[in-house]
């Protein structure tokens, strides 16, 4: 196991742990306002200080981890459940019109400026976590479709697939039995990377006010709230910023580590 994997797993599980613990316990009620106690610096009763409404930042970070993880996880889930079958289908029908349609569709989604579309989606359907998930999820679909197709295509050239065809198995069955398990590693690795990108995207959307709505805490919105206060309450910006960086860093390291660990040869698209 590489250092990347250990460090990545440690950082990621720290965040996940914080999120899970927040269901049972947080230092304070994350939503409880205490305006006279606003903008307390870290240390003292509030370990990480308080925000502009006097809420406990440590508690908000913990509950915010929940939001980030949930949004990114579901968005990756959407990307995988739709993208992977599309990629498998395209690979199985390589060169056919179906392949062509799927791949051109992918290119098209890629061609849309994602942030702008995310803003449009939230403008149409209103801001909120669910719409943020959809907006992020849509852009995950082509990523997974493309990577699945690429890996599946090279697998289709392998002799064991030919052997399965000789055994009379159809494309769907071969895709499920032989292709999918062999691209699983790749998908796990890409999944962690998309997951980290999802967390960044959620933060970005929340930052412009289109992500999770109050009172659900969200790291991106905490940053947005902190914006005007950086100069006199820098902890309000630093803490959520560090939380995002730690999570994304952890997930990326985990992805890299997993890749090296599972299969050093697979390659991952990173954009």
């Amino acid at each position, binding site marked *: 196991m590489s250092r990347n994997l250990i460090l990545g797993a440690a950082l990621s599980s720290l965040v996940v742990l914080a999120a899970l613990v927040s269901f049972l316990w947080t230092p304070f009620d994350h939503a409880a306002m205490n305006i006279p106690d606003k903008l307390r610096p870290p240390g003292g009763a509030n370990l990480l200080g308080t925000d502009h409404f006097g809420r406990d930042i440590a508690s908000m970070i913990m509950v915010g981890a929940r939001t980030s993880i949930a949004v990114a996880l579901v968005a990756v889930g959407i990307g995988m459940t739709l993208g992977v079958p599309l990629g498998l289908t395209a690979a199985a029908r390589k060169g056919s019109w179906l392949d062509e349609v799927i791949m051109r569709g992918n290119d098209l989604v890629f061609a849309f400026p994602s942030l702008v579309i995310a803003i449009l989606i939230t403008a149409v359907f209103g801001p909120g976590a669910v719409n943020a998930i959809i907006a992020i999820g849509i852009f995950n679909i082509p990523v997974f479709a493309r990577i699945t197709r690429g890996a599946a295509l090279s697998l289709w050239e*392998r002799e064991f697939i030919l052997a399965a065809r000789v055994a*009379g198995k159809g494309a769907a069955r071969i895709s499920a*039995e032989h292709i999918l*398990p062999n691209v699983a590693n790749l998908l796990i690795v890409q999944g962690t990377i998309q997951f980290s990108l999802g967390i960044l995207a959620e933060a970005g959307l929340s930052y412009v006010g289109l992500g999770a709505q109050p009172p659900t805490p969200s790291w991106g919105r905490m940053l947005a709230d902190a914006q005007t206060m950086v100069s006199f309450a820098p902890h309000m910006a630093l803490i959520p910023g560090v939380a995002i960086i730690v999570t994304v860093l952890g997930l990326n390291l985990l992805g890299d580590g997993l890749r090296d660990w599972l299969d050093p040869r697979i390659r991952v698209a990173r954009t």
Partner: protein
Amino acid sequence: MSLLEISGLSLSIHAQPVLHGIDLSIAPGEIVAVTGESGSGKSMTALAVMQLLPGGARCDGAIRLDGTEILNLPESRLCALRGATVGMVFQEPMTALNPVRTIGDQVMETILIHKAMSPEAAEARAREVLDRVGLPPERFPLARYPHELSGGQRQRVVIAMAIALRPKLLIADEPTTALDVTTQAQILDLLKGLVQEFGMGLLMITHDLAVVAGMADRIAVMRHGEVVETGPTRHLLADMRHPYTRMLFQASGHRVDLPPTRTEEPLLQVENVSRDYRLPRRALFARPGYHRAVDGVSFALDRGERLGLVGESGCGKSTLTRAILGLEEVQSGQIRLDGEPVFSGHRPNMRIRRKMQVVFQDPYGSFNPRHRVERLITEPFHLLEDPPEGPERAEAIAEALEAVGLRAKDAAKYIHEFSGGQRQRIAIARALIIKPELILFDEAVSALDVSVRAQILDLMAELCRSHNLTYLFISHDLSVVRTITDRVLVMQAGRIVEQGETEQVFSDPRHPYTKSLIEAAPVLPDPEEIRRSQGHV
């Protein structure tokens, strides 16, 4: 004085010993062949001479090249030696050239990097060596890119690069393994000619004893990182003191004892089959072109008969296999098994499919690494309407595994736990499990070491006896086809150019193509004969 003097060379990679006390020397104008099975350390020996070893490698001992001790030489001095004093040719011509630079550029680079001459002179020299390796300027201008050349032509470019500065020593690591027999013969001739002409020393690495016998002055046999036997070619072949050398030699010329054919009833009928591949369109609205990979092929295969199919790479052998298996639709003609078409109404005919199985070339790539052996070899059960279940299934698995010389309990293992030869046995077990009437072997032994190959061929003969197999054996290796088949088809550019009883075709080829194939194939000399001619006892 020798040109290259390796003494007591030991090598370890990440503390894993790879070579132990290698001694080897080459004189100017001498061809020394290093042979041995896969993994015996041949390539590492060559790379040690170039000092291009993989990371983590440590060398002990001494390598003197043209009087200079090269171990411990600084990198800059080594760079000055490489390409100028010693040149190297690698096995894979397809990937040994930089795809984005012209061949002229790449040949000239050898010259320019050593500042041996002015760019104009270098260009002239590049032209000259390309000429010398058989790439005349009319057809092969310097501005060509590697992808515009065939494998054999690329290998010539690589050789031209290696000899551009007339190095004193040329190292060739399996230079012809990836090539056709006819191309191989040409390249070997070319190398021999160059040695004579320039008085170079040639260190030639090959696992093919027949090639070795035909061209080397001296042979070194390697095993597990050691040189087990070395000597002048004729002496060594006549004596063969080391049992390993003897085993290697015997395995190379291994002949099996095929039982006679019993029935005469036709099983497979291929009638006038053609298969086209669509080429990319040349212009936007132009009609796409077609490449005819199989062209009007007809033949029949009787029950119990063993048929061979030989031909150069790309002549359409595998395409024909896929057509017979009903995996792809053919553009014209009919393929019938047991009287029924394998492909009907644009769909493969499943009833017929279950009467056929196939064994592929690559023992590493033909199994899903994520499944256990039991699942791997029972995959053909999918073809059956009512596949065996429970104990019946376990019995079938055990039977198939035991038939190929493995144990029933191997069923629970994963494929990576087996060696190449064992994997090929598992591939045969997979083919046998539904007791097919016809098995297609597509280059089934080409990737194996000679000794393993001999075992698999024996196994096939054994199975013929016990299971009365009918098979189509596809290979580019004539000697193998000769021993394992009754009848043979010779294929060239998608057409069958000659067919007949195996022995007869080989001893008295009619078609010029068959003749050239047989002539080009290197033959293993008969040690008896060498002994007699040399006056040994």
